[in-house]
């Protein structure tokens, strides 16, 4: 017996009075929603992903999109999504794949936190007139300074600083590999970080030659598949990141389908053309914290202790203790990826159900490192669902040194968060390797948009800090006094170590 079709997700309609049949929608839709028959544009709404490419390209605003055009009988437990997933799995017998971040309606802690500003007892600082310092150094810091006395009695600094990354703004772009995203997308991001004095991650996909001019602003990644890793790659990076886990899919590995492994991707990843690139769930040389410490040391040795090493973990229940373990290795920074972190593809059940929110994870990690007296010796980088300069400021006040943004930087390149990245047909030229689609990104224009985004958040962060009477980012970091919880329950406030509004 056939299960029949499920209702449409989106309904596309064209205002025929407005339409001038320029065919831009037909040309732009890579999912095949539009086709021409007898000089008429026909619509197959079932193919639509709500990527908005057609809408944004239509010169007459003739296209409209309606979400959920067909209702299910409403039911609080058996949501439309639950029913459709079951139908889907009854048909296929497979794990459901999904793109982008967690799509469940969990409360967003960022939106229940408010920032502080000065009134009377202390003056706010105007960033237009006074210096405002956002410069951030990522890497190991000494616990204290040591001095020696020379024969003449002069005091000489004995402490040598470990190499640190110098950021002009505490916003970096997270790891999105060549393969998961296109080379033009990576190039746009790379030019943007070079312009704004910050860094981006290569992801686990090696570094394509055309990115070499930006290598001083790139953090190379060593993940469980070790794709693209050789000494040349390690030495090109400004820093090296060991990826243990990812917020969108904690506890599992990755899978780049063979269709996406074109010749360029295959060279960069150092794998055969057209083969699936499967990253195992664990690193098979890391089964314990001491194994991780060994890998950190090995990478340090390989690069002569010249590069900071980051370790990225997904925010899971025990994140604080794990981060404390990492801080005890030679690692320079811990990256915490919250459960709203994006992904090209993840099993939906993981994306939506595994891990904890980044806000709670940062607070817990900061607290644990403080309790152990080692907070300032290691940097903490937060990622996973940071949407605005407010989220950035709140992340830092909760204890992060800097953040990684991923989805936000892709939105600056056109992404509309349709969540179909894993299909390789991204009409914006981001999550695809099809040359015609990839060429839709002009890297000069794209990089300017991403740089604009970083610049505007930087300006907003400066204003927020100035209003709070702070002129240096160090004084916002972990400064819970600058946060209040609004309608958060007592146990959550305790985890965040934040007072409620009015207190």
């Amino acid at each position: 017996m056939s299960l029949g079709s499920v209702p449409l997700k989106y309904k596309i309609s064209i205002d025929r009075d407005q339409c001038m049949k320029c065919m831009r929608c037909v040309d732009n839709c890579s999912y095949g929603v539009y086709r021409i028959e007898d000089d008429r544009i026909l619509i197959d709404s079932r193919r639509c992903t709500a990527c908005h490419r057609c809408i944004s390209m239509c010169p007459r605003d003739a296209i409209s999109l309606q979400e959920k055009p067909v209702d299910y009988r409403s039911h609080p437990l058996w949501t439309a999504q639950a029913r459709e997933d079951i139908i889907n799995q009854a048909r296929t017998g497979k794990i459901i794949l999904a793109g982008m971040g967690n799509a469940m309606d969990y409360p967003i802690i960022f939106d229940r936190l408010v920032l502080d500003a000065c009134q009377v007892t202390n003056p706010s600082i105007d960033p237009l007139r006074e210096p405002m310092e956002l410069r951030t150094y990522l890497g190991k810091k000494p616990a204290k300074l040591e001095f020696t006395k020379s024969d003449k009695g002069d005091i000489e600094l004995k402490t040598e600083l470990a190499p640190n990354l110098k950021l002009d703004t505490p916003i970096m772009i997270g790891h999105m590999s060549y393969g998961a995203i296109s080379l033009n997308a990576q190039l746009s991001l790379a030019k943007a970080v070079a312009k704004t004095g910050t860094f981006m991650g290569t992801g686990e996909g090696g570094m394509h030659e055309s990115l070499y001019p930006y290598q001083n602003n790139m953090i190379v990644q060593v993940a469980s598949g070790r794709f693209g890793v050789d000494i040349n790659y390690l030495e090109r990076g400004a820093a090296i990141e060991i990826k243990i886990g990812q917020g969108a899919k904690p506890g599992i590995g990755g899978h780049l389908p063979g269709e996406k492994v074109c010749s360029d991707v295959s060279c960069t990843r150092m794998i055969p053309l057209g083969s699936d690139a499967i990253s195992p769930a664990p690193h098979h040389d890391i089964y314990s914290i001491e194994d991780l410490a060994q890998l950190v040391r090995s990478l340090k040795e390989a690069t002569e202790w010249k590069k900071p090493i980051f370790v990225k973990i997904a925010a899971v229940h025990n994140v604080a203790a794990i981060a404390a373990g990492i801080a005890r290795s030679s690692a320079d920074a811990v990256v915490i990826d919250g459960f709203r972190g994006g992904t090209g593809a993840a099993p939906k059940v993981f994306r939506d159900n595994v891990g904890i929110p980044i806000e709670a994870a940062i607070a817990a990690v900061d607290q644990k490192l403080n309790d152990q007296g080692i907070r300032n010796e290691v940097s903490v980088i937060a990622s996973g669902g940071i949407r605005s300069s407010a989220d950035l400021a709140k992340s830092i006040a909760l204890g992060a040194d800097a953040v990684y943004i991923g989805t936000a930087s892709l939105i600056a390149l056109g992404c509309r968060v349709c969540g179909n990245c894993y299909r390789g047909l991204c009409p914006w030229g981001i999550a695809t390797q099809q040359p015609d689609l990839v060429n839709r990104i002009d890297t000069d224009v794209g990089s300017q948009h991403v740089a604009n985004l970083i610049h505007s958040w930087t300006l907003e962060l400066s204003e927020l800090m100035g209003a709070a009477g702070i002129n240096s980012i160090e004084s916002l970091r972990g400064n819970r006094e600058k946060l209040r919880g609004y309608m958060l329950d007592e146990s959550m406030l305790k985890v965040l170590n934040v007072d409620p509004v009015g207190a």
Partner: protein
Amino acid sequence: MCGIIGVIDRTRARMDGSSIKKALSLMNERGSGEGAGYVAYGIYPDYPDCYAIHVFFDNLVEPKSKVDEVLQKWGRIVHQEEIPTYEQPCLKREHIPWRYFYKPYTEFIVGSNNPAEDIIKHLVMTVNSTIPGSLIFSSGINLGVFKASGWPEDVANFYRIEDYKGYIWLAHNRYPTNTSGWWGGAHPFNLLDWAVVHNGEITSYGTNRSYVESNGYKCTMSTDTEVVAYLFDLLGRRHGLPSEMIVEALAPSFWDEIDILPEKEQKLKRTLRLTYGPALMNGPFAIVVATSNGIVGFTDRIKLRPLVVGENDSRLYISSEEAAIRVMDPDVKTIYMPRAGEPVVGRFSQ
């Protein structure tokens, strides 16, 4: 607001408290009559090797017996007495100020470079956070804090500070916003040899507090000033930084200034700033810190609070207002205003 003033005699000649009382009262416009205090170094020459522990007791029954007990566990009380006070019509007595002259048993702890001081610090933190009705507000050798809620002259007369003679004095006239009317909230704040008077509001308090707490201090006074004392204790006593370097850590040069320094100096300042980032104090402040070795005054990095320096031979004055210095010393020879974040250091000549 708040008004501060400090003086050091660089030849260790001792001054009684009458002139600083006058200077502080002159700045009454900066206060609200809800808190004032004084600290003097060199006032207990009869007990040169005892920690002078000043305590506010709510009564002399439970709190005092508990404090006696914990002090006796950790050391020997050489002498104890109520601090002499004299009723003032405009000052409401909230606590009984008491003092112990005390020697800790240094063999009781291991792993410390300075067991006596670490025991005293432990006692201060323990008493203040666990024994209700008692507050240790002064804990150094040969020095003492005298403070209460009231106008400067009433507080001075309450303790008769003209009866004490010291070679360093700091004083503070308070306009409270955080903890009004609480004697413990008045300045100076003291821990061991460090005393602090502070005008301003530290916007980095949350960060500074986490940092000192992660280094074993407990903030118990619900005010931002106490972290200054702890930061000085941590950086000065435990990490051994000289005063100028502590000030550079707490109110560092801007990166733009550091970037153009000669390489060696640049490296020092960058290392200092990276190592002590969480100790950086932000927000408007003018602070004078004292130890038995001298005083240091400084402001925040953009000087959002006033600070004036006066000199007359062996005397160095640091104050919120020039007028206060001139009341203390009408013959003062030089007066100048230090730059933002620049330390003003007064050390003894020998």
